[in-house]
């Protein structure tokens, strides 16, 4: 007996060591449970990050667009007269965001916002010889835009250079038109404006729809073609916390008066799917945690019954109720902690095995699962805490044991 260790620790560790098989079994049980929780949490994080990375890396988190034009009837307002006016919706032409420089400045100053980039975009026709395709022409300031969508990483051929006469195309669009890097092509808009541009790069945006449609040109080029001299049709933003995008969008809308659409609203299906996954995963983790807690409680209840005679003797020899209570609470906490260590090892092993064994057909990992030390720390803490809570009922039972009954029994 070490003189630094109080009675409760000594007794708790002896009791746990005495019931070796029981302790080993419950430790393995807790370990498997904690391992499942760790693996599921890490897998969820990895999978989400993977989906979000794939989807959001090719688009902004929030897009600012000018408020829609609304036709307002000039007459009306006469008391007692109900008017059934037929209001024709105005044509939505490409318009600039009013005072966009000021808005960019304001939005850039928000702490939640990561990057801001103005864009002049509109529909255009891309032509190369006989072939023509309708495309979305996005005029961007490369320096700012690449912080939102890292085009250089998505380049499959050529480079992401956007000079005044350059154009970067989606891969499938280039195939449809039969152009390669270095070729020239003509791009024209509905108003009749047209320009001949040089293809500097081909990008793979991760979806065929985008690859068939998207073209990137320099902001000035797009402004000139679209008749938006000095103006932009939208402003793209990224935020630090992608799940807070909608809240940030609403704040920006209130702040600037322009319409702000977050990815959560424009990809509501995806967001709902991710959310549903989080809820399902959390529910499973919660119930696994509950099962662990009941396992610990069951083992300790049995232990209190088995040890009732010893509890009685300890009480007869001057042991207080508090001491007995603490001995069993400690056992619960120790079981939780040791179990979570076993679980961390199992969970870590599962994550490593996942990275090694589960692969795409091309041999690359399906998606990486991060080994987050915080996750291990949190589950150790949580398991210890639930061990403590689970031990409460048995510990209270032990502490309330009548010494006479305990000794006689």
């Amino acid at each position, binding site marked *: 007996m070490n003189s630094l260790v109080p009675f409760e620790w000594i007794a708790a560790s002896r009791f746990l060591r005495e019931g070796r098989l029981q302790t080993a079994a419950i430790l393995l049980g807790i370990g498997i449970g904690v391992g499942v929780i760790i693996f599921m949490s890490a897998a969820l994080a990895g999978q989400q990050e993977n989906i979000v990375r794939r989807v959001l890396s090719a688009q902004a988190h929030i897009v600012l667009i000018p408020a829609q034009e609304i036709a307002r009837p000039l007459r009306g307002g006469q008391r007692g007269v109900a008017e059934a006016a037929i209001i024709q919706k105005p044509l939505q032409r490409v318009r600039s965001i009013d005072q966009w420089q000021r808005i960019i400045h304001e939005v850039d100053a928000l702490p939640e916002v990561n990057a801001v980039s103005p864009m002049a975009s509109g529909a255009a026709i891309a032509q190369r010889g006989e072939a023509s395709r309708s495309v979305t022409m996005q005029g961007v300031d490369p320096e700012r835009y690449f912080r939102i969508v890292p085009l250089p990483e998505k380049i499959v051929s050529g480079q992401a250079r956007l000079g005044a006469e350059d154009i970067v195309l989606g891969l499938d669009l280039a195939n449809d038109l039969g152009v390669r890097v270095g070729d020239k092509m003509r791009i024209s808009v509905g108003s009749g404006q047209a320009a001949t541009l040089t293809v500097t790069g081909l990008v793979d945006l991760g979806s065929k729809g985008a690859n068939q449609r998207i073209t990137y040109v320099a902001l000035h080029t797009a402004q000139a073609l679209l008749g938006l001299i000095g103006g932009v049709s939208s402003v793209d933003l990224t935020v630090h916390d992608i799940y807070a995008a909608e809240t940030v969008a609403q704040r920006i809308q209130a702040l600037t008066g322009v319409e702000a659409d977050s990815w959560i609203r424009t990809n509501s299906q995806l967001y709902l799917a991710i959310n549903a996954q989080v809820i399902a995963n959390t529910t499973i983790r919660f119930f696994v945690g509950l099962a662990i807690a009941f396992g610990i409680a069951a083992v300790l209840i049995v232990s209190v019954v088995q040890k009732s005679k010893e509890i009685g*003797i300890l*009480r007869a020899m*001057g042991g207080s*109720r508090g001491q007995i209570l603490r001995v069993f609470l400690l056992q619960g906490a120790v079981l939780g902690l040791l179990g979570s260590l076993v679980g961390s090892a199992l969970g870590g092993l599962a994550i490593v095995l996942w990275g090694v064994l589960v692969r795409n057909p091309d041999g690359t990992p399906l998606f990486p699962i991060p080994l987050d030390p915080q996750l291990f720390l949190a589950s150790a803490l949580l398991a210890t805490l639930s061990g403590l809570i689970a031990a409460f009922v048995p510990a209270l039972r032990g502490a309330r044991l009548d010494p*006479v009954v305990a000794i006689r029994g």
Partner: protein
Amino acid sequence: MAEPVVQLEDVRKSYAVGTPVETEVLHGVDLALEPGEFCALMGPSGSGKSTLLNIIGLLDRPTGGRLSIAGRLTSGLDDRAITELRGHTIGFVFQYHHLIPAFTALENVMMPMLLERGRPDAEMRSRAEALLASVGLTQWRNNLASNMSGGQQQRVAVARALAMKPALLLADEPTGNLDTASAQGVFDLMREVNRTQATAILIVTHNRGLAEQCSRIVEIVDGRITTDQRIPGRSPN
């Protein structure tokens, strides 16, 4: 005369109080034990011996009457005070030794001191070693309690009961489970303790031969004391 270690006045105990099967097992017991007395408590099974012993040992509470231990009236004390009084004044030896199997002989002897002080210290250890030596078990001190014979375990239990230098040692058929030689050994040990440390001892026994070696024999039948006999020449000094 010195203040009695134990004083019972009209102590009653009923079980199943308030139910139709309420039964009184002790019907007004008066008993006083002087310091240094070695008293045997005898009686047939079901006479209330163990109940009386548990009440004196503060493991159980009487339903009527007054009980004083070492001059303190116990009726007003809460669980914490009772536990403390029990720890400091009373040592127990049970029929089934009741050592804690997960601990060694030495640790079992240290246990009452450990429970009181919270963590082990050198003084505790040396006292426990001295006590184990006095019961002749020094070489067994690091054996787990579960690896010792019945007689050895009971001697450890006596050493443990003496750890807190109790004024009173209560023994519930301490020899009931032992062969004759071991029984006499344990009994001699208790008599030695009684003689050298002036510890009052109350021992429940069915063995008349052992009882007659005591300084006083109290017999209880159906919850009442029927005889209370002091054996001349063996009174406490």
